């Protein structure tokens, strides 16, 4: 009973935040609502027994996506002089769209309510968990049973980064990613930038290390590490790396490269991407370690953006 009340309240608050984020007039307000929405969704995931997802949502949905949106909004506002009207002003279109969205919602809800008896893969996963090399079932799926998805996904991140790098101005190519951040030494921001990284480093590494036994893993840990790096640079304690930097590029690709190499090596053990059960445990940990490094580097570079011309830095 009380659980239902909690769930119902949470659903309503989520819908309110999402409604303001999508319908609100003011763009900045919408972005703040989206950040709030990410926090709330993380709670919903806990209620659905998905701690791994909650971790990912807290780190990515509430954290990084919000940062990306805030930064983009600020930069666009400075560049786009007059902004276009925020919503379609033809009432007929708006009403038709609203009706269509309502019909689609009802259709999806109906489909959800009429789903047949659940036949999940909990049993299959549990049966094969011992041979997977991970004790956390989600990690077992991500790194072993469906490792090919994860491998491709780590490359999707790189594809997005390459796409962002194509947006650099030609004369800026090879330079430092993003804008230069300056802070006065001893300021609140600079102090904060000193205190947070050690804690964040600890948490990030812990999440990866603990990920094979309990919720956590390369993506969640990598995001935390990326956040640490971003804070350090925003606090002006470090400069963002040059996009032509060899060490940076090596860090970006090492995770996918090692994962791919392992996948190919698998054909000697029977099939593509086979992890021999006897070695799966440490192999997964090793892959997670390098993936974390690459994910952290890639995510941070996604946030920094393309290199900017020196005079603007």
């Amino acid at each position, binding site marked *: 009973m009380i659980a239902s009340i909690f769930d119902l309240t949470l659903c309503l608050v989520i819908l309110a935040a999402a409604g303001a984020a999508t319908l609100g007039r003011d763009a900045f307000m919408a972005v703040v609502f989206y950040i709030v929405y990410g926090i709330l969704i993380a709670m919903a995931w806990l209620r659905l027994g998905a701690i791994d997802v909650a971790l990912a949502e807290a780190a990515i949905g509430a954290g990084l996506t919000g940062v990306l949106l805030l930064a983009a909004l600020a930069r666009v506002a400075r560049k786009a002089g007059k902004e276009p009207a925020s919503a379609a002003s033809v009432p007929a279109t708006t009403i038709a769209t609203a009706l269509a969205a309502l019909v689609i919602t009802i259709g999806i809800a109906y489909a959800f309510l009429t789903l047949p008896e659940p036949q999940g*893969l909990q049993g299959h996963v549990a049966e094969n968990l011992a041979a997977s090399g991970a004790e956390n079932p989600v990690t077992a799926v991500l790194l072993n049973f469906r490792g090919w998805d994860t491998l491709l996904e780590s490359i999707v991140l790189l594809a997005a980064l390459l796409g962002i790098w194509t947006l650099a101005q030609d004369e800026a190519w090879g330079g430092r990613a993003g804008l230069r951040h300056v802070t006065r030494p001893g300021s609140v921001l600079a102090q904060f930038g000193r205190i947070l990284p050690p804690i964040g480093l600890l948490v990030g590494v812990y999440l990866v290390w603990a990920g094979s036994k309990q919720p956590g893993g390369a993506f969640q840990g990598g995001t935390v590490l990326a956040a640490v790096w971003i804070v350090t640079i925003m606090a002006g304690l470090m400069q963002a790396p040059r996009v032509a930097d060899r060490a940076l590029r090596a860090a970006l690709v090492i995770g996918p490269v090692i994962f791919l190499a392992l996948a190919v090596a698998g054909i000697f053990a029977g099939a593509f991407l086979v992890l021999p059960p006897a070695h799966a445990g440490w192999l997964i940990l090793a892959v997670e370690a390098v993936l974390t490094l690459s994910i952290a580097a890639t995510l941070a570079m996604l946030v920094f953006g393309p290199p900017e011309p020196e005079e603007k830095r």
Partner: protein
Amino acid sequence: MTASALALALILTAPLFGALAAMLMGRRGPAIALATIIATAAGTLILLVIIATEGAVHLAIGGWEAPLGIQLRADGLAGGFIATTALVMGAILAVAAKPFAGGKTERRSAYTFWPLALLLWGALNAIFLSGDLFNLYVGLELLTLVAVALVGIEGKRETLAAALRYMMFALMGSLLYLLGAALLYAAHGTLDIALLAERVGSAPGDIVAAAAITGGLAAKTALFPFHAWLPPAHSGAPAPASAMLSGLVPKASFYILLRFWFEAAPDLAGSGVLMLLGGLGAFAMVYGSLLALHQDRLKLIIAYSTVAQLGYLFFIFPLAGGESAAQPWAAGAWSGAIFHALSHAMAKASMFLCAGLIIEAIGHDRLPGMKGIVRALPMTVFAFALAAITLMGLPPSGGFTAKYLMMTASFAAGQPFWALMLILAGLLAAAYLYRPLALAFALPDEDAPAPKAVSRARQFAPLALALAAILLGILSAAPFAFIQIGRPGAAVEGLE
């Protein structure tokens, strides 16, 4: 280690390794691409031989069978698309080696082009081999992000707008597809295509899922009315990128549609849905052709032509889907559409490469400026003409075989409307391709500036592609039999 595992590993990982290497070593792009072409082509050849001799290949990634793991499936259809992709990518990368050469210092466009192009290849191969709807989603996302990046690589205002427009359609398409996949998993506990075939019924969830997946993929294939993004995106990119975007990228989402409707959910295909898809295709065909007639830039003509040509790929649904699947004409219709997809990939890539070389020679692609270009670029214009023959569907090209098979099927099926549309498509293609060809062969204006020279070796690549499209028609028997290998369920009688 089996030969098939080695082949699949090469096809899947060589382009990805190449992309990562190119990302690491900025100025070695062309050399890395060459190594990738060799490795992937070797894997493709091995795979083709295995499929031809032993039939469809199945491989459980990591040794985990469905429903727990992801299954790779290489049948004739997959083999045909992989081989065509290898051929087309090889030619494109050969032409791209000059404009995107490494140089002394690293340049932005040259640096990003190579990893993006190789990632595009890797994503295509991953899609063509995957037998799992969620894995297909990840592959499709990789493909989409890379394609969007390639559209915007010139960094001009119009190309960025084109990339953004494409991105918006693609984002919506991905979400719809993902929604469908989520509903299917929730209902059936698997996203393996073979297992879904046994489980998908006509529950509300299945219908909503099928609608969402179809809508999402149609948006990514630029099916009318989701076509608005395509012409500016495909015409705004540099020619080698355009060739990939127009020749190969839309085929991937079409391929997933085929896998979905013919393999995962064949029983769900009611005649209404199939007619709708075919009808939208017919509309796209007419609409794209008419707009192509009105363009004054070569690349825009070619891009609108893609809208039209993709349109009649969708005739496969009414002719070979649903109740037609068990009919004797289905094999012909099915092969016809696949032939069309493959020959269009080669011909369209060839055309965009030709357009790129023409731009290199005269500095732009406005039609009047092309007058008499045949004297400066005889091989290029010849290749363009050959590719045009394929797009018009004239014998002996692969396009002709495709149309012949589909028309025969449409008469056999008692649906002559599609045959009429195919004839119309051919006539319209002839009309919109006539203008650039006629200009190319005309006498140049006296005062026209002399075109810049383009090396013969580079002109050879589009010619090879156009020839391949013709050869696909002349030697159609072997590929016809090949792409039938492992075809699900239906009658295998040909119509030849």
